[in-house]
């Protein structure tokens, strides 16, 4: 069922329906449709009182997600749906399920963020923004402003995740176009280039102005470096700082088979949560963080042997998660719907591993890290699990879903996207 809503020049829909608030004023109109609602195909397990319901589905490669204060949900796609790459969803009748869907945007990508009356969204090379109407709809779906352009995307770690602070800045991840800065990427025995040339233009977080058009490297600031690849990041309003989840390095075992077993490869290089300040260096490619020794270990490409430490000037992570499980979403919870324990804590969506083979693959869940006074206050835990399907599906990596993006809605519910089938879950809490 497709409904085309015509909008008049004064911004008020010319057609009255229960969907009229979604009509975009001006010349741009969005074709509305009924969201696809797949039947549950996995069982999501969570602590008592929480439930996960399917909010929308069939979106394809649904990456990051952001929600306006009025409840419009925007999902960035890395593939096209109906020829478009941003999905707008709305639950008008308040039953916890989207009843209205529209698509717009021509650039595939990962990043999306609602901030100060704008919707920011990224391709793998550029960042755009759309002006939002007061109701949360997009005023110019066909003509976004280009904020940042010319960013490097060279096959590996291309997605540009974005977040904004409260001082008019936007932070953009530029992932390393390399695994470990070897002379020959991922080749057995190839040593690291020193100094690593990737760090000039990638492997870090760049800061740009949120309202200046057509910025590129020269206009921005390399805010933090030595970060191999960040997909999950969030601005923590409690600390007023940027937090990021780094994807640790791959293939210790296949590149240096004499130094590392396949099991060590599967387990050693942690996925790390960092708090960033301007000028920080997390140490890639010269070190990786060993979550068992709790040390910054010199990378074998730079003379390491699994024991020698390195990175004296590199910051330490706040949390070291298991290797390779691919943190793609980070969200600091500011709502009041969930129990007190969750307030200001961090949710992390793990996309799931591929580089643990022949060991079983892991991840495919949403984790939670409790925070107090801006620091982790306890051990991380698995919050929502089961997205992958059966234990066999998880172990083989042939999972049903792969969690990617996280967002908080105005009612304190959280949303989880999946970029395998494009399902969006809404997680709510009711005291048991």
């Amino acid at each position: 069922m497709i409904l085309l809503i015509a909008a008049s020049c004064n911004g008020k829909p010319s057609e009255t329906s229960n969907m009229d608030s979604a009509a975009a004023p001006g010349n741009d109109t969005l074709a509305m449709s009924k969201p696809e609602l797949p039947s549950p195909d996995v069982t999501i397990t969570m602590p008592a009182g929480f439930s996960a319901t399917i909010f929308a589905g069939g979106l394809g490669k649904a990456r990051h997600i952001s929600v306006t204060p009025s409840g419009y949900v925007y999902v960035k796609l890395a593939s096209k749906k109906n020829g478009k790459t941003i999905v707008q969803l709305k639950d008008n009748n308040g039953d916890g399920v989207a009843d209205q869907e529209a698509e717009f945007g021509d650039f595939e990508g990962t990043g999306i963020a609602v901030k100060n009356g704008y919707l920011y969204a990224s391709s793998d090379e550029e960042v755009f923004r759309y002006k939002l109407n007061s109701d949360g709809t997009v005023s110019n779906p066909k003509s976004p402003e280009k904020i940042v352009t010319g960013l490097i995307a060279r096959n590996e770690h291309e997605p540009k995740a974005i977040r904004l602070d409260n001082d008019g800045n936007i932070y953009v991840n530029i992932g390393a176009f390399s695994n470990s800065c070897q002379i020959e990427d991922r080749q057995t025995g190839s040593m690291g280039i020193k100094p690593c040339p990737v760090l000039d233009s990638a492997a870090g977080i760049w800061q740009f102005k949120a309202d200046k058009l057509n910025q590129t490297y020269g206009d921005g600031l390399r805010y933090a470096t030595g970060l191999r690849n960040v997909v999950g990041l969030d601005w923590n309003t409690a600390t007023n700082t940027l937090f990021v989840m780094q994807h640790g390095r791959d293939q210790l075992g296949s590149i240096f088979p004499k130094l590392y077993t396949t099991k060590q490869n599967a387990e050693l290089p942690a996925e790390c949560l960092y708090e960033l300040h301007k000028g920080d260096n997390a140490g890639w490619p010269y070190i990786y963080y060993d979550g068992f020794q709790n040390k910054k270990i010199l990378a074998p490409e730079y003379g390491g042997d699994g024991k020698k430490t390195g990175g004296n000037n590199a910051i330490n992570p706040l949390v070291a998660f298991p290797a390779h499980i691919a943190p793609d979403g980070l969200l600091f919870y500011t709502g009041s719907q969930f129990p007190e324990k969750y307030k200001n804590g961090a949710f992390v969506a793990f996309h799931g591993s591929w580089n643990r083979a022949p060991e079983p693959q892991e991840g495919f869940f949403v984790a939670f890290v409790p925070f107090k006074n801006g620091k982790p206050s306890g051990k991380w835990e698995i919050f929502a699990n089961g997205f992958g399907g059966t234990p066999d599906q998880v172990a083989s990596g042939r999972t049903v879903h792969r969690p990617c993006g996280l967002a908080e809605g105005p009612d304190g519910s959280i949303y989880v996207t999946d970029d395998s089938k494009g399902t969006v879950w809404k997680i709510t809490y009711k005291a048991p």
Partner: protein
Amino acid sequence: MISNQRQLLILFFVGALINPALLLAQANHCVAQKSPLKMSMEAGQTVYAGLCLSCHHADGAGSSNLNPSLIKTKGILGNKRDLIECVIKGNYQHTETDGQKFQNTMPPHPELTDDEIANVLTYVRKSFGNKASAVKASEVKTVRAEIKM
């Protein structure tokens, strides 16, 4: 049925009485005569486990967006020359595979012998549901010589 089995047993014993060495010889024959293809597949599986499995996985299906599947793709079933070249030279251009681009680098493996490349490609072309012809060491040798030119 029973009488048939009896007849066979009798024949067997008669044969063994006539020439007891024959049985032993036949047993040895079975071990020694493992087919060249089977040996190539086994050797190829060992190479695969050491070098390929971490990215392409035990089931050959790779990992979406990152490492290509080796199951019934044109690159695997098609032109052997290109496939051999890909193993020797790697794929730093991230060339599309069956219309899909993959983000990770295929590292080069010039260190593998002609036999090892032939074996691993034979294993891949005849595993995971693939049913393509074997790759010979002589074919690898030819491609390696061409690449060097």
